[in-house]
């Protein structure tokens, strides 16, 4: 069965005063049905823009400048707006990072849920209300009847995020894009949400693109991981492959810099320098200025090394695969 989502060389550019900035640079990945792909990367690496590009929600001055987004076999790039509307929410849904900001503060929860159903004409008023309430129940919200009539500000952050997830799941979409939905939440609440999301995906076979900067979260949740750096995917593969045998020096540095149990008070290996801002990404390998292994060759476009199916490393000098 073909993956539900196939992204090929997706490129998104922002037209700014300082010239065009490529926020997403020739990004390619697949998400299979029922699969959870973790898209990780540090701040500004282009994760969110990637997510928006998939939904056609990049606002001017940004635009998708190239590549293809094959959703269920159909290329979404350049789709007219009405077509987009039919897809959004119904077949592809999205959950945003900040639960405090994603719900309209002046509309009640039920309004915001029911309209999502009505927009696609799948349910009339009463029916839509019932379905919405059930959806709330499914994401683990106690007393959903009551919560339906609440305004967002009357709910805690965790509850709001679950409402957003419930809205995303209303239509049993084929793909959910979750943009750091738990970053703003506490550990125990994050645990609850991960639990719900995981269960729902498993049950309904929804594919999930989980965007985060927290390697640890995707470690527990995802099937596969894609690592972004400065707008490009530098490495992707199965969770264990990427985390245990990182092929890219960036991934390796990143993993090394996270404190691990049992090595208390030891100096952490650190990646020198800082993440380049978009305009200042070096040519060739974007990581070369911070990479210990970099040499003249890195000034050229790095090749994609694919040691195994579904596993890719974009590097001139990939880390030799040496199991630890």
């Amino acid at each position, binding site marked *: 069965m073909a993956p539900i989502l196939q992204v090929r060389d997706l490129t998104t550019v922002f037209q700014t005063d300082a010239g065009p900035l490529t926020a997403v640079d020739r990004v390619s990945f697949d998400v299979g049905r029922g699969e959870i792909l973790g898209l990780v990367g540090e701040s500004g690496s282009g994760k969110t823009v990637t997510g928006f590009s998939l939904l056609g929600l990049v606002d001017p001055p940004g635009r998708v400048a190239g590549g293809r987004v094959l959703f269920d076999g159909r290329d979404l790039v350049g789709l007219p707006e009405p077509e987009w509307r039919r897809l959004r929410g119904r077949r592809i849904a999205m959950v945003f990072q900040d639960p405090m900001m994603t719900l309209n503060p002046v509309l009640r929860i039920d309004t915001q849920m029911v309209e999502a159903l009505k927009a696609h004409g799948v349910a009339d008023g009463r029916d839509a209300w019932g379905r919405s309430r059930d959806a709330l129940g499914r994401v683990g919200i106690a007393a959903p009847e009551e919560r339906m009539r609440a305004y967002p500000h009357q709910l805690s952050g965790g509850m709001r995020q679950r409402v957003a997830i419930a809205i995303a799941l209303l239509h049993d979409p084929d793909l959910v894009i979750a943009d750091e939905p738990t970053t703003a939440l506490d550990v125990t*609440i994050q645990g609850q949400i991960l639990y719900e999301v*995981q269960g729902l995906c498993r049950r309904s076979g929804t594919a999930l693109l989980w965007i985060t900067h927290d390697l640890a979260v995707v470690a527990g949740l995802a099937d596969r991981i894609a690592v972004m750096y400065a707008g490009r995917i530098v490495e992707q593969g199965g969770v264990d492959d990427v985390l245990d045998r990182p092929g890219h020096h960036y991934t390796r540095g990143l993993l090394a*810099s996270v404190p691990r149990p049992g090595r208390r008070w030891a100096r952490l290996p650190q990646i020198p320098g800082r993440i380049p801002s978009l305009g200042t990404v070096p040519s060739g390998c974007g990581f070369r200025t911070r990479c210990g292994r970099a040499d003249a060759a890195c000034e050229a476009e790095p090749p994609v090394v694919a040691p195994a199916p579904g596993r890719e490393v974009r590097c001139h000098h990939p880390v030799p695969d040496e199991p630890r």
Partner: protein
Amino acid sequence: MTDGPAPLVELTGVSKRFVRPVDLSARVLNLAGARYRPEIVHAVDGVSFGIRRGEVVGLVGESGCGKSTVGRLIAGILTPSEGSVRYKGGDVARPRTVREGLGVQMIFQDPFSSLNPRKRVGDAIGEAPVAHGLVSRAAADAYVAEVMERCGIDPVLRRRLPHQFSGGQRQRICIARALAVKPDFLICDEAISALDVSIQAQILNLFMDLKEQFDLTYLFISHDLGVVEHISDRVVVMYLGRVVETADTDTLFRTPNHPYTRALLDEVPRIERRARAFEPVKGEIPSPLDPPTGCHFHPRCPHATDRCRVERPPLVEIAPGHLSACHLNAAPA
């Protein structure tokens, strides 16, 4: 608490309440039978612990549990509603000497708002030492350069404004600003939470280096248990304004006692833990405006008994240096 030298900082029975009083009109209406009561947030509720010289104490807990408030109380920005916060035996809010007043410094979470956006970073670092006469105005420039150098920022940049620096650099500047007044105790309130993963390591390393160089003592506030585990000698766990457990780091992570601590440790995502089946702690974090009775954790605790619902469990030593506030410990096993 283990014996040893007198603590550098000591909190005894510290409470902090934020009260929004009932105003005149509400009081008038109360006479007519209405029931307006002042809104009281028990941000910190009877907290006691000490920090010895040279020690790194980690303070963990979920959002709103009062970690920052404890930090601010120790820094003397807030004064406790009850109890006392002592630094070198004196009240932190009323330092006896300038030196003592400057002994405790604080690094904040948000590197964007913790620097005055309109002050050049060199001035920000140099202001306090000059104002307090630690260095002369003439020598200030060289002094600032030296401190910046130590914190890993090129002194050439001292004429720049904060917005021209990255988050990591700003945090270094904040650290330099604190170190410029030669403190011996640093409170790091989520000092690395807002930074990128790759930068976090740089700052953590800097903290560790500086501790060695200046013989500093830290209170390290964080919700990232991994980081706390890495850097702390001892950990204090708070829940809704109260300390629920404290122990040295190894003990706490290996044999957590309090159900909350255990739940917390269970939930912490770790790179090593793959393909997990998540098992959530039930319930929401209650509001500090209206905390549960008895043990604050009882509504979410799988082991809660009737006693937990009514009686506040005291913080008792269950093993040397390991304190926990749970009724289960008192119950015969």
